């Protein structure tokens, strides 16, 4: 891709992201569309997030128990599982699952609306497609992804508990007291900021790529793939940058 085209795409992406965000406070408001999107993004992803998080928690706990027992530090399993899940793994895993399910759905739905001239029809009727299509998806993502992350964190900790108690034969009470010890403001805040940013990014990237769809079925396939890949890369890179910033702001020494 030529540098000029890339710059134009970036500019269009930023404009769409800002217009989508501005739509939250500018009339008209599309409540019904927003509720529909929240239902699709939130309720629809609930079971997948629970399942994935539970297994991630179990796998993490297994790895830590195996390694820490060699060092005689098995009692720290709960603490490390807690910090890893709340600060890092929970938000990232939930965001990746969200991008794969909801983001792909956004890109393919909007792409098919572009190909079927439905987006042009909105413009003909004087309806701003960004307000009608992008803003409800941004709102639903920045509300539902944090909610799903909290639920995912809880089930990841539960998975960790299952392994720690029934496989690694440690005390369940001690596991939960270790978890409750690490649920201090710094850790919870560090894990809470990320889902809002990830949700906004996923919605903007997937809507932008969906609305830029060209061609027929192949164009739609390319858009959906691009949307998921770009979202996952954005999540991982942004996670690193946010972690660096948050550790600095919250006074952790590295």
């Amino acid at each position: 891709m030529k540098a000029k085209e890339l710059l134009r795409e970036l500019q269009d992406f930023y404009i769409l992201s800002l217009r989508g965000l501005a739509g939250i406070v500018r009339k008209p408001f599309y409540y019904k569309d927003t509720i529909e999107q929240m239902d699709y993004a939130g309720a629809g992803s609930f079971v997948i997030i629970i399942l994935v998080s539970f297994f991630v928690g179990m796998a993490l706990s297994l790895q830590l128990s195996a390694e820490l027992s060699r060092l005689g530090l098995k009692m720290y399993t709960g603490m490390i599982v807690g910090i890893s899940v709340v600060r890092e793994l929970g938000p990232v895993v939930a965001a990746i699952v969200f991008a794969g399910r909801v983001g792909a759905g956004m890109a393919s739905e909007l792409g098919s609306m572009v190909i079927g001239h439905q987006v042009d029809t909105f413009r003909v009727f004087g309806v701003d497609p960004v307000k009608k299509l992008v803003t409800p998806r941004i709102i639903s993502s920045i509300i539902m992804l944090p909610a799903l992350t909290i639920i995912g964190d809880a089930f990841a900790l539960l998975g960790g508990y299952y392994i720690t108690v029934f496989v690694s034969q440690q005390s369940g009470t001690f596991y939960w007291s270790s978890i409750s010890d690490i649920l201090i403001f710094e850790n919870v805040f560090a894990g809470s900021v990320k889902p809002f940013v990830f949700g906004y990014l996923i919605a903007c990237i997937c809507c932008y790529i969906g609305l830029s769809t060209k061609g027929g079925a192949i164009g739609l396939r390319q858009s959906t793939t691009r949307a998921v890949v770009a979202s996952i890369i954005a999540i991982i890179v942004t996670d690193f940058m946010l972690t660096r910033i948050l550790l600095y702001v919250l006074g952790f020494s590295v």
Partner: protein
Amino acid sequence: MIKFDNVSFSYSARQILKDVSFSVGLNEQVAILGGSGEGKTTILKLIMGLLRPDSGRIMIDDEDITDKTEEELRDVRLKFSIVFQEGALFDSLSVKENVAFCLREYTAKSEDEIDIKVRELLRTVGVEHALELMPDELSGGMHRRVAIARSLAAFEPRMFLYDEPTSGLDPVNADNICRLILELSKDGMAEEIKRGFMIVTHKVSDAMKVAERFIFIKDGMIVFDGNREGFLNADITDIRIFLSELNFCLGGGADV
């Protein structure tokens, strides 16, 4: 009056229209013909301001719309009603909700008034029975009819723009759509043209049924612009190939 003045347009590196110029009155019955990918649909999108030309000017009623913003284009778009290929109905809305879309968006009508208006419009286009159906439950012909009803819902267009309204339809349904196009352009039984239309198609038999003026596009340029008689006698190879479809149907074989 729609006026194209040396309009050129390209998608990426591919030039679609090359210095196209023509004028069409809003009450004319025009067919734009040409092969696939020749820029016929692009002309409709340029008229509606959905695309911007690379060069040249587009005037609607002596108003230059070439550089207008989306907000400014809104009044211009109200003069037209475009029916896209396949209908472009909103997938997630039922037929009733599709037709009611603009009524809910732009009028203060009550739900009862909207219901009456929607039924009336669907009756006009002959698909009242499809009121509660979803778009994926409709046939191709019904799709087009509902789209036409939706385009009439909230606005009083001065001209219809039809993008391949009969493509993919069987001859009976295609004929019904052609009749509907003519009915909507005329003022009841008075036979007086109330609204013009521009129909984009590659089916010359359908164009012959409805249009009085024919514009033929080849390689992004207008190679013919004239009336029915001129079109039938045009000595242009591509037009002869298109017309061979008619000759073949009439039993005359290909006359290229």
